[in-house]
């Protein structure tokens, strides 16, 4: 018994020594209606196993809630309990969950999620779950323009899109191998600022995304030509 205790003691020590100081946003998780992670970003160190457990726990907490209840709830025990809030939005097949501490405004974060999704929507032209799956890297780059080290970096969508566009310009100047990728993405982005402005005025994004009729995913895969 002593040995086991000792062991758990050690583990405890290890965990606490690795804990980074508290961040405002501890984690950003995107998963689908079945709990499959589509984007995870932790701003505090957790080992791989813990990350997966946190995703599971969060999915269980969030997915059992009705669509019309409030968008805030206390965090699960793994991610910091009542000291942290889960602020989430549910778009069609995806949940976007931000785990934040009390130093952030709840409504502010809710809007930030909206900005994130609207930006994805601009960059991918009607974003859907498949875009997140096939473009993990791009999604990360976009997120990096919004949130940095657990802190809100930029909230202005025009500005964010300009920066993504700058990156794409650099990409374009480089080797031929990804010209296919950039040309298409660029086509979407070059026109973005103008369209973004108009879109901001007349878009009700949750509605729009919900309206997209996504075929069942396995079927969608079959239809895709690679």
């Amino acid at each position, binding site marked *: 018994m002593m040995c086991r205790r000792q062991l758990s003691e050690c583990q405890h020590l290890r965990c606490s020594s690795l804990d980074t100081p508290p961040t405002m946003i501890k984690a950003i998780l995107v998963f689908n209606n079945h709990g499959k992670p589509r984007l995870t970003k932790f701003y505090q160190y957790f080992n*791989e196993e813990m990350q997966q457990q946190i995703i599971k726990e969060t999915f269980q907490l969030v997915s059992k809630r009705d669509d019309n209840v*409030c968008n805030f709830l206390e965090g699960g025990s793994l991610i910091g309990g009542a000291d942290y809030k889960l602020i989430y939005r549910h778009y069609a097949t995806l949940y976007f969950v931000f785990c934040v501490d009390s130093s952030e405004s709840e409504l502010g974060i809710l809007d930030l999620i909206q900005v994130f999704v609207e930006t994805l929507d601009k960059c991918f032209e009607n974003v859907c779950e498949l875009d997140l799956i096939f473009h993990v890297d791009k999604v990360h780059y976009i997120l990096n323009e919004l949130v940095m*080290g657990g802190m809100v970096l930029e909230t202005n969508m025009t500005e964010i899109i300009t920066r993504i566009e700058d990156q794409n310009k650099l990409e374009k100047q480089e080797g031929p191998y990804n010209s296919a990728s950039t040309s298409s993405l660029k086509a979407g982005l070059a026109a973005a600022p103008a369209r973004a402005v108009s879109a901001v005025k007349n878009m009700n994004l949750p509605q729009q995304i919900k309206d997209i009729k996504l075929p069942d995913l396995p079927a969608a895969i079959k239809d895709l030509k690679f």
Partner: protein
Amino acid sequence: MPAVRGDGMRGLAVFISDIRNCKSKEAEVKRINKELANIRSKFKGDKTLDGYQKKKYVCKLLFIFLLGHDIDFGHMEAVNLLSSNKYTEKQIGYLFISVLVNTNSDLIKLIVQSIKNDLGSRNPVHVNLALQCIANIGSKEMADAFGSDIPKLLVSGETMDVVKQSAALCLLRLFRTTQEIIPGGEWTSRIIHLLNDQHMGVVTAACSLIEALVKKNPDEYKGCVSLAVSRLSRIVTASYTDLQDYTYYFVPAPWLSVKLLRLLQHYPPPDDPGVRGRLNECLDTILNKAQEPPKSKKVQHSNAKNAVLFEAISIIIHSDSEPNLLVRACNQLGQFLSHRETNLRYLALETMCLLATSEFSHEAVKKHQETVINALKTERDVSVRQRAVDLLYAMCDRSNAEEIVQEMLNYLETADYSIREEMVLKVAILAEKYAQDYTWYVDVILNLIRIAGDYVSEEVWYRVIQIVVNREDVQGYAAKTVFEALQAPACHENMVKVGGYILGEFGNLIAGDTRSAPAVQFQLLHSKYHLCSAATRALLLTTYIKFINLFPEIKSQIQDVLKSNSNLRSSDAELQQRASEYLHLSVTTTTDVLATVLEEMPPFTEKESSILAVLKKKSGRMSAQEAQREARVQAREGNAAPATEKAQNAQLKTKPSSNAAFPIPQLNNSTSADLLGLSTPPATQNSIQSNTGVLVDVLGDLYGGGGTNTHNGTTTPASLSMSGATDNIKKFVCKNNGVLYENDIIQIGIKSEFRQNLGRIGVFYGNKTSMPLQAFNPTVSVGPGQQGKVTVQVKPVEPSIDAGAQVQQLVNCECIEDFNGLPDLTVGFTYGNVPQRLALHLPLSCNKFFEPTDMNGESFFARWKNLSGPLQEAQKIFKATGPMETASIKTKLLGFGMQLLEGIDPNPENFVCAAIIHTRTQQIGCLLRLEPNRQAEMYRLTIRASKESTAQILADLLAEQF
């Protein structure tokens, strides 16, 4: 569908589709392992990969990681990508590192140079990649490496806005790890002046940074107040077309407004009347705007607008100085309470909790009581109901306590399981705090037990008993009420406990009524007896013996119960003991003695209600709010204590036995030690000795008041001396691991290992009780026999051990030269407010540094002869204390640390051993001969050592082992 889908990395897309087409988890794992093997071989292969390939493989690894598979390679490839000339390769390298590399990885050292290069790049996109990476890792190494570059980047006139913005947040992140990173002096004003920056993004980021700095050093950054106010003022008065890009759904710069308002909450209202006026103007405008018709029907518009509004209300509450604004804020929140947006209702309830504690707005909040109660009944979302409970708790005062408590009780019947325990605590606290009539209080607690018995913790029912015992006027009522409650066919065990205790003390007050005659009371309680747990039965047995004293007429009936096999021969030691001791007490003692022993409980010394402490512990997030609230409530009630309360206090003071029976609970983390004595009345304890944990608890508490016995320099409460403590120190001469000491409170275990002249001892302290051990402080000190000869280094331990927990303390030691005796180990702690001190020894004796040495007979005897100096030999002849079995003697000698040399001594009965003691200064060769004489049951022990004095030390140590 957009054309992005058809883009470049075909291999990646194929792989992802393969995975998604997998029919089973096994198939998926198989496919992934195949891919991992493929990538691994590609990375290891001779062929140099081009950037595209590297990028593709890293992307695959990221995808595999996202699926929850551990990635243990590819890191070096990612590090190499960082220094690539191509932006896309660099970018993916950074991505891999930010997702997969943790702060402590050795790789950090390898990437510092690449980051430095990018940080100095002329291309802002590269600089930002570097800043993002630093901020994501955010470790001390990063702070050390870039601590000087980033502040410069932040304030330099040449830095582009995009970079400045990232630099501000990056600096903030590093500041959280390493506070010294922010240079003081002139930097302070330069950082503050970022609030005036043209670029709104920069101002927002700077605002976050300044807020963190202000938390640490409010005075130094005081200058930010007026700048923040004027910035806020410009935003608030701007029309939504002014700020263009930073207008979000017709709301000008909502995020920046929120940040500025947060920043200002770190300061009291500005002293400068101009600044103060401007701030109030802003707040006024924000409140006004809330009343304007929305400029858009989009939820984003109202969200953004309300985010600012809630922050404004928050600062109004925080300043707590403008009655006009407070009331307006309250009215605004009141509107939100019945808003159709659930989020707003949630936030309104949450914010109103704070408002309820301000003396200006407390009354205004109370106007919404109906709505809040309604929310409790009708909200569909448990998160919202939880906030409603919090608010009711916060808005409760003497005038509405009865109604609120009643509503909470009603709700409790159907409440979500997840919040029941917290609700029970809240109801118990409110009932106690605002009780004007204690019969009401008793009713409430009994209702709690009836409705949610499983969630009524010990603290709650202990407390009701404490209060009944201390208040004469309520005792008769309590006895009557519990008697009635117990008549329910199925009542909760907690009810039986409370009922048993109260009837045992005050059953006589209702015995006059034939419906509750003594025999009836007894039969009622005893009808529950067999359904209860052992702990409750034990409590009931105490009630029965108390009945014998109160009602001699039912003595024989009770004695029959005590005599019954199920008690006298109970498998539970505690029950058996109580039954037999109580039986003897009732048979052998005179009525006078019985009456003295079983006298009514004396009033409890009044301490803080322990329930509040439990509640605070339960709701961690609430604690700060709660603290603020308590402070304010006290201030408020202190100012305007109603006449009745004062009268009550005066009346209480005339009663010496109970001082201020119902003080407003103080902020204090005292534990519930005061209540532990309740499970058995202390009055009977003096005559009963037992060594079970429960009784030690009680005695610990009893002796706590009466001081401790001092003997032999060791202060130990008497309770310990009778509880069969075992000190195994002697056994440790011949072993390294095991239990060193044990009593009813603590178990101390040892694991140790020694190599050469160094040793490491792990001391394990286990708390055997159900209460934390506080002020825990074990110390090790070397005695005169070891001074300068052995060094011990003790790692500190936490000052408390939770109930049932074990902590480990590491002791590093070094032997400098041979030493005598053992270092002292003194373990001090308080248990239930009683200081305890255990004077023990650390099992660190000279022989621990033995290294067994093998040799043949020839060299043994040669050495033996060499060591013939008078002080090189020590001999002892002593009587055997245990059986003289060969096997156990061998075990002891081996445990002593020496090599057992077989077939060397001509007499096979004898044992010879050899070993070397390692000290820092020298090695001491030691030889041993042990001759048992079985007829005489004696031993002769002879030890020779190369150093004078060592032989004697070893002989003394070993002789005691046989």
